[in-house]
């Protein structure tokens, strides 16, 4: 409960607002303004997790979003649980409950730590080398085991009860990052009158200024300047400040995705608030002020709890009033170690020694450290650390001419390391800007821009507080100016170095650009020394060297082989050191090794943010016909057909109250249609109204059939091809008038067919006077099919002569049904006498119910799509997309009769003239009858002549439709078979895993081959 490691005063925490929280079941206290990390550190807790692969004890490395170790699960309840959150970004609130991850049974004793002892057997690339045998074992055995042992957090299993919203925003200038450069940029852009959004991933805006205790800006302490600047920005109408908002993705045309965390920091979030908001910001200009990330040093045992980045330790002390320990050893390659040492000493941490990798140590900060009595040791490295769950000592050794001398052990409870700073070029790189290696800075810096963006401050290698502020101000002014030009933005340009219109005098320590990249020398047996490069994925310098020895040259290969940089932190702390190690091993300069690609998201993002409201019932649009509810009320089982819900079959209670299964229901429905009458909701058919003086000419060009001579009042089955000659869609078309066609399409094909028609009409034949209108949803379509169909509808129809002579098969008449206008088709997809009643959708259900009532005396049977499929297969009617697969010609599908041979041209005609399109060995539609009539073939099954032929067995074709036909008392199937029509009468085989099934090739019409039933 004590905050033993809290400073006596200072920091930005609110000491008047204590908060109680739990970590791994233990209660602690912190203050408002703490992160989970700072509060635990103030309580002396550093052991925060176990590493991914070796289960090594790990502590906090950093204080920000780059943290690789401190991943925790934060849960309000069983459903509201978020794994893998960085404790350094989790804001403390009253009652917060957090748990460590990847440990069993407990954090301090973890059985998985045996992996650490087994590590000689887990070298880099071990996934590829070890677990590939026997075949299939990876999926069944190794992967689940490895996932269970080497893992991250566990996702909750309950649905997420929180809301996530998605918003769009526009601005003239988006500034990413509210450190000194970003603040100055926002200020300058706002003063120029631009509409500005300033976002930052942290709870408080200010960036590095939040950790400053001695710097001054414009004559005031940095904290005062920050408060005044934020107040002035907040007061402006043209500025939106967005804390807790991560710019995680940079997408084309300056679309920046922001993740705003709205409620995670609240003890009791209001029910009206979403948990997170996704902002899609379209910015005219972007200023990236992402700052720089401190780089660790790579030396043996650099991963013990208590080993932290030096500047992060300074942030804990200055910003949060939390001391990382009582006695620290510092290992540095730049002045950041000295600045941290001085600030920590002032906060009450004793500094045991500063080991400086550099031979020459000079400058203001080292001088001040010496003056403060700190033991400063140039040319010194850390060659190891000791301690079980927390560092207890560091081993220091002199380096002379590359040789490492004897080690001296210094007791300590913390080791603070700094290898310099890496500019954060993630967003710039995501924008596809070109990075350029700057040898003097030892860093990749933004080069040529692709998008309308510019970088400012530390993320482009500028250092020194005043220079950073002035660079930010200048870039903000330039961005505001550029944003006025919406018409011709300069692209592919490197933003010119800008000069601010005013100076922003500031005083602070300038750390310069010194630093180190790679692994530091240690002189120990390399087989026994683990020097970590990538903390989160447990990659050591030894692993990187092994990869280079095994032939990896490109950094992309090294990355994939070792998995370095591939964890959820995307190598924020490891990428540059990896490059340095490879560079040294291959004796190749860093820029020659390449740089891996930075990809969104910058930090992990929740799925909820992307899903937004699109979940559950509104995940995807659901389409229902006007008759849907009737079907549901009558017990229909539904199936999904595209976005449509269609009645699949209508099970009834049989003897003893047992519900029919699909097989029984379909058998009953089929028999009813053939024996008497059935009704079917065909409303999902696509419908297009084609109108205009040139409508017939347009139809002639779009369909294979001849339309010119089709009289008004007649129907015709139309076949549509793509220009490559293959069947694209089919449907019955009614000629309503000389200049008007009622076209139907397949259920799934409607949008595609309309787009296809529009394409030709708009771009090839704009001279044709034709209008196309989708009418799919305007009409309900009720198919009444069976010998009694005419008798059922006759009493309901007015204004249409239904007699056989006046209204034969394949006609359309207009009249009324129950007083509702109808287009009545005499058409059949069952082979029986049939009608399709088209009525405006608003009357669909009423007409359906009237037909059902009128049919009762004939036992009218509503049927679903499964019965529709069986009935049409009995007649050999194809379904485009089931019998055809985009490589079938009309002739292949037995539709050669529908091709108007005399027509000069139609879409696809020229392709049909190619020799290959009429080759005799093309796959053709045939029927199959199994020798054993009880066997129903599997759709998709292959067809061969001899299943015992040497592999690969030549494949003749495949089964496209297969059903049990109750009416015929046997199974039937349709198939596409090479040269199929010439094989009628032959026996072929359908091989299955355990045996082969004998089939006979037959004509594809199984029922009423002469078509005598169509006319009733």
């Amino acid at each position, binding site marked *: 409960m004590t905050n033993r490691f809290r400073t006596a005063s200072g920091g930005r925490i609110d000491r008047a607002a204590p908060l109680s929280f739990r970590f791994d079941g233990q209660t602690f206290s912190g203050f408002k303004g703490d992160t989970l990390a700072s509060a635990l550190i103030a309580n002396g807790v550093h052991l925060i997790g176990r590493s991914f692969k070796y289960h090594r004890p790990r502590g906090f490395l950093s204080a920000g979003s780059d943290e690789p170790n401190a991943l925790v699960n934060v849960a309000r309840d069983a459903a509201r649980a978020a794994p893998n959150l960085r404790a350094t970004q989790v804001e403390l609130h009253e009652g917060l409950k957090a748990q460590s991850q990847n440990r069993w049974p407990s954090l301090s004793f973890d059985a998985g730590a045996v992996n650490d002892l087994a590590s000689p057997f887990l070298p880099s690339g071990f996934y590829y080398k070890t677990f590939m045998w026997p075949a299939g074992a990876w999926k069944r055995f190794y992967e689940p085991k490895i996932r269970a042992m080497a893992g991250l957090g566990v996702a909750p299993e309950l649905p997420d009860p929180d809301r996530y919203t998605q918003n769009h925003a526009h601005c003239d200038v988006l500034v990413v990052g509210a450190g000194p450069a970003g603040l100055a940029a926002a200020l300058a852009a706002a003063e120029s009158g631009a509409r500005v959004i300033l976002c930052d991933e942290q709870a408080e805006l200010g960036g590095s200024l939040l950790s400053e205790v001695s710097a001054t800006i414009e004559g005031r302490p940095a904290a005062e300047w920050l408060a005044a600047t934020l107040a002035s920005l907040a007061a402006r109408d043209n500025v939106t400040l967005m804390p807790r908002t991560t710019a995680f993705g940079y997408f084309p*045309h300056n679309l920046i995705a922001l993740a705003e965390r709205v409620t995670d920091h609240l003890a009791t979030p209001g029910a009206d608030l979403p948990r997170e908001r996704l902002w899609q910001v379209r910015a005219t200009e972007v200023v990236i002020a992402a700052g720089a990330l401190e780089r660790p040093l790579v030396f043996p045992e650099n991963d013990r709890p208590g080993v932290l980045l030096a500047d992060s330790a300074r942030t804990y002390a200055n910003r949060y009033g939390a001391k990382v320990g009582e006695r620290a050893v510092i290992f540095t390659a730049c002045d950041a170690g000295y600045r941290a040492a001085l600030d920590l000493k002032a906060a009450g941490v004793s500094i045991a020694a500063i080991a400086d990798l550099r031979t020459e140590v000079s400058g203001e900060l080292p001088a001040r450290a010496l003056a403060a009595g700190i033991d400063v040791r140039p040319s010194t490295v850390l060659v190891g650390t000791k301690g079980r769950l927390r560092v207890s000592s560091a081993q220091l050794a002199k380096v002379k001419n590359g040789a490492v001398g004897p080690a001296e052990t210094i007791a300590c409870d913390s080791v603070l390391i700094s290898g310099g700073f890496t500019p954060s070029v993630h967003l710039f790189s995501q924008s596809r800007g070109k990075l350029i290696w700057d040898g003097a800075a030892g860093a990749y810096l933004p080069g040529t821009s692709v998008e309308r963006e510019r970088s400012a401050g530390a993320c482009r290698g500028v250092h020194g507080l005043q220079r950073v502020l002035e660079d930010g101000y200048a870039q903000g002014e330039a961005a505001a100016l550029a944003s006025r030009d*919406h*018409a011709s933005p300069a*692209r592919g340009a490197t933003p010119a170095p800008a000069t601010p219109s005013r100076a922003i005098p500031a005083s602070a320590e300038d750390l310069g650009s010194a630093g180190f990249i790679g692994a530091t020398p240690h002189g120990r047996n390399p087989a026994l020394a683990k020097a970590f490069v990538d903390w989160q994925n447990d990659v050591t310098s030894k692993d990187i060297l092994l990869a280079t020895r095994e032939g990896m040259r490109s950094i992309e290969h090294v990355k994939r082989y070792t998995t370095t940089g591939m964890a959820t932190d995307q190598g924020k702390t490891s990428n540059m050191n990896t490059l340095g190690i490879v560079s040294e091993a291959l004796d190749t300069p860093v820029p020659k090794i390449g740089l891996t690609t930075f990809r969104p998201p910058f930090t992990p993002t929740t799925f909820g943010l992307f899903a937004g409201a699109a979940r559950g019932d509104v995940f995807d649009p659901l389409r229902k016909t006007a008759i849907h509810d009737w079907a549901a009320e009558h017990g229909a089982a539904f199936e999904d057909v595209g976005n449509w819900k269609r009645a699949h079959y209508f099970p009834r209670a049989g003897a003893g109250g047992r519900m029919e299964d699909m097989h029984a229901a379909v058998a009953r429905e089929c028999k009813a249609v053939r024996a008497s009458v059935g009704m079917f909701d065909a409303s999902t058919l696509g419908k297009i109204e084609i109108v205009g003086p040139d409508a017939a000419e347009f139809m002639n060009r779009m369909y294979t059939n001849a339309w010119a001579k089709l009289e008004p009042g007649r129907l015709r089955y139309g076949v549509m091809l793509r220009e490559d000659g293959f069947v694209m869609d089919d449907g019955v078309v009614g000629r309503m008038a000389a200049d008007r066609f009622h076209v139907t399409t397949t259920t799934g094909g409607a949008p595609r067919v309309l787009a296809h028609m*529009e394409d030709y009409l*708009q*771009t090839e034949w*704009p001279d044709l006077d034709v209008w196309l209108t989708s009418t799919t949803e305007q009409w309900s379509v009720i198919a009444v099919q069976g010998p009694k169909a005419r008798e059922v509808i006759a009493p309901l129809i007015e204004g249409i002569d239904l007699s056989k002579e006046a209204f034969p098969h394949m006609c359309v008449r207009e009249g009324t049904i129950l007083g509702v206008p109808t287009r009545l088709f005499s058409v059949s997809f069952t082979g029986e006498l049939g009608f399709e009643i088209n009525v405006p959708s608003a009357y669909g259900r009423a007409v359906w119910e009237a037909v059902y009532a009128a049919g009762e005396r004939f036992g009218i049977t509503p049927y679903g799509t499964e019965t529709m499929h069986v009935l049409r297969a009995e007649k050999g009617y194809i379904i485009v997309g089931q019998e055809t697969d985009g490589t079938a010609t009309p002739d292949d599908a037995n539709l050669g009769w529908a091709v108007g041979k005399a027509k000069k041209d139609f879409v696809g005609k020229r392709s049909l003239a190619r020799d290959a399109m009429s080759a005799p060995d093309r796959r053709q539609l045939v029927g199959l009858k199994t020798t054993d009539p009880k066997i129903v073939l599997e759709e998709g099954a292959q067809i061969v002549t001899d299943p015992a032929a040497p592999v690969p067995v030549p494949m003749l074709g495949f089964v496209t439709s297969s059903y049990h036909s109750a009416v015929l008392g046997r199974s039937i199937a349709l198939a596409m078979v090479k040269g199929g029509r010439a094989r009628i009468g032959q026996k072929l085989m359908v091989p299955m895993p355990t045996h082969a099934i004998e089939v006979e090739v037959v004509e594809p019409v199984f029922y009423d081959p002469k078509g005598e039933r169509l006319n009733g």
Partner: protein
Amino acid sequence: MLIITCPWCGARPEVEFRYGGEAHIARPADPSALTDQEWADFLYNRTNPKGLHAERWRHIHGCGRYFNALRDTVSDFFVTTYKAGEARPDVDASSGGSK
């Protein structure tokens, strides 16, 4: 997400549009007069340039019209858009960006 300027409606986000392949490939007036090779060229062969590409787009969730665009396939930026039937504008890739 790209911003695409429909010549009829103005600048709109990419999700309102559907790509329509290379532009200025007219369907031959009499396909039957073409050899198989000529027909195959019309059907399948496209220029696939590195740089400026004239291509068709349809404002499918807007006015529904097809139009043409010049897009730089290297930078993925649109240089200009124009109505179907108009000639390809004589511009180069550096002459602008998305409007």
